[in-house]
């Protein structure tokens, strides 16, 4: 029976979406007014006409396109890597019985509790001694596989793959990897898509690690490039309008990706695996 949701559902969702979108809209407004107007009180509520002007100043000030390319490469590489390794590990924890499986899974979850702030220094030292600093690879390396990814895939696959299917495949003589490929991966697809998108976004917005490890080299990610916008000639006060315009410009590619893949993603969620 198809029951269309009532007005209340739409109203609640609309409120939630409005709340989600408002700060972005705000950022756009500030990015579209003049520098002086941006910091005045009362603040502007409607867009001024200066967005393109501010945006072109952003392009003048930073090497936007190469930073964008780097961000895309690094984020894409990390997303693919995380999805691949996390699905593999998640499948193993979820469906394969082996000694120490529970203890190791708990260990994986525990690793998520490590505060990242201090790890930067020993990591930097390690990377420098290995001659890896200043490369895109160095930025992506800590993101090769994440504990969150493993935990996420594991909990999804526990319910998403009926044990009978795996047994059936094994009985039919599939090797382990074949079973993984033909049974687990199709069932995991929606979760893989979500994890991929989440990882992509997280790596895209990371700042401190790229800053540290790319320091002094010409390689820049979008976030480290944007930071340069805070340098106002001879001054310490940043140009708020410029900063927000830059933020908007850095957000747009992600939005586009999101819109392009989002529908498939969400459709994937719709075709989610079924609990028996």
């Amino acid at each position, binding site marked *: 029976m198809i029951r269309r949701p009532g007005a209340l559902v739409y109203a609640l*969702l609309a409120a939630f979406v409005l709340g989600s979108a408002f700060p*972005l809209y705000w950022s756009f407004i500030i990015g579209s007014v003049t520098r002086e107007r941006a910091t005045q009180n009362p603040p502007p509520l409607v867009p001024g006409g200066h967005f393109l002007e501010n945006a072109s100043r952003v392009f003048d000030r930073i090497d936007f396109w190469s930073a964008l390319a780097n961000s895309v490469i690094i984020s894409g590489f990390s997303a693919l890597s995380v999805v691949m390794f996390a699905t593999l590990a998640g*499948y193993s924890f979820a469906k394969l019985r082996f000694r120490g499986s529970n203890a190791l899974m708990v260990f994986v979850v525990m690793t998520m509790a490590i505060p990242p702030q201090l*790890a930067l220094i020993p990591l930097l030292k390690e990377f420098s001694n290995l001659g890896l600093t200043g490369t895109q690879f160095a930025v992506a390396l800590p993101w090769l596989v994440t504990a969150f990814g493993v935990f996420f895939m594991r909990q*999804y696959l526990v319910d998403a793959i009926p044990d009978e*299917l795996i047994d059936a495949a094994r009985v039919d003589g599939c090797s382990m990897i074949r079973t993984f490929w033909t049974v687990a991966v199709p069932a995991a697809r929606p979760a893989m898509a979500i994890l991929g998108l989440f990882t992509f976004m997280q790596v895209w917005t990371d700042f401190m690690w790229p800053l540290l490890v790319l320091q002094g080299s010409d390689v820049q990610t979008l976030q480290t490039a944007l930071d340069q916008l805070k340098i106002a000639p001879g001054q310490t006060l940043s140009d708020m309008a410029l900063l927000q315009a830059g933020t908007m410009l850095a957000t747009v590619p992600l939005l586009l990706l999101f819109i392009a893949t989002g529908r498939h993603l969400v459709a994937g969620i719709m075709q989610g695996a079924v609990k028996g």
Partner: protein
Amino acid sequence: MAQDHDLPGRGRGNNAVLDRGGPPRRPKKPGPATTAGGHPTRRYRLSRWDLKASPYLYILPFFAVFAVIGLYPMLYIGYLSFFSWPRFGAEHGSSVGWENYVHVLQDPVFRKALVNTVGIFLLSSVPQVLVATVVAALLDTHLRGKSWWRMSVLLPFVVAPAATALIFGSLFADKSGFVNDVLGGIGLPDVSWHGHRLASWTAIATMVNWRWTGYNALILLAAMRAVPGDLYEAAAIDGASRVRQFLHVTVPSIRTTLMFVIITSTIGGLQIFTEPRLFDTNLQHQGGADYQYQTLAMYVFNTANSAVDPYPRAAAAAWLLFVLIIIFALVNFLLIRALQRRSA
């Protein structure tokens, strides 16, 4: 009942395979397990090895990367926490035993940070999980343009945390901020968002929730899609309202995922760093003039820049934070399991 045409995910259970994108391909027939003489064939031995080793091989990439990226720094930091290391010194000095830990535990700022962290965590993670569950349920209906609705909740995640802090910082400015303007407009007094402790927690929790609620909602939505339709139909036949169906069918069915969301948002909620740090416009970034909103992660970071033995003391604080997070996550896990057992 008629099939749900636009919701192929809701199948009838037994035809799981057909409801998905296609059946798994049937592999070739294997050879015999043993030779005529009773010895295990090469193929069989390979297969046994495959069975035993594969699980470990599959999890190896994670642990290998983790050993380099996560384990080594953690152990190194733990080791360092027992030494002294003068600021900007090239190497660490002599061993000081547990002194650094004692110093941290006796620091009134550490205690304030502890209270702040737990407070902000409660204000963020609890509403987050609740609202995410409700939003997921709302999205799990036959909306028109459901793809767009479902995507739009992830909008906040697109904005970098630093940019978020910039935006919300100006919205929550004490005198010239938009939120106070609105409050003034409806006759309420200005709130000292940067000065009042609870107010600052609320502002920061708002930032964090804004970013992560949609994220968690999508994860929960994915789990909700997998709940079989028959359960809802049975409940409807029994006369249960939508709300009751939600409480008694949906929520129990997404147990594992709910647990996952609670654990990850607990761990994340206790590690909050960027938002409160940038919320403080004072160049010290110390989380409020009276440390109203300094979290433990900020404490670790600021200690690493302090005057005496900065790095070892920060290392001690980092390990204490790590232990705290483990304890909280564990308590959460056991609590929820106990609740589930009671309701089952």
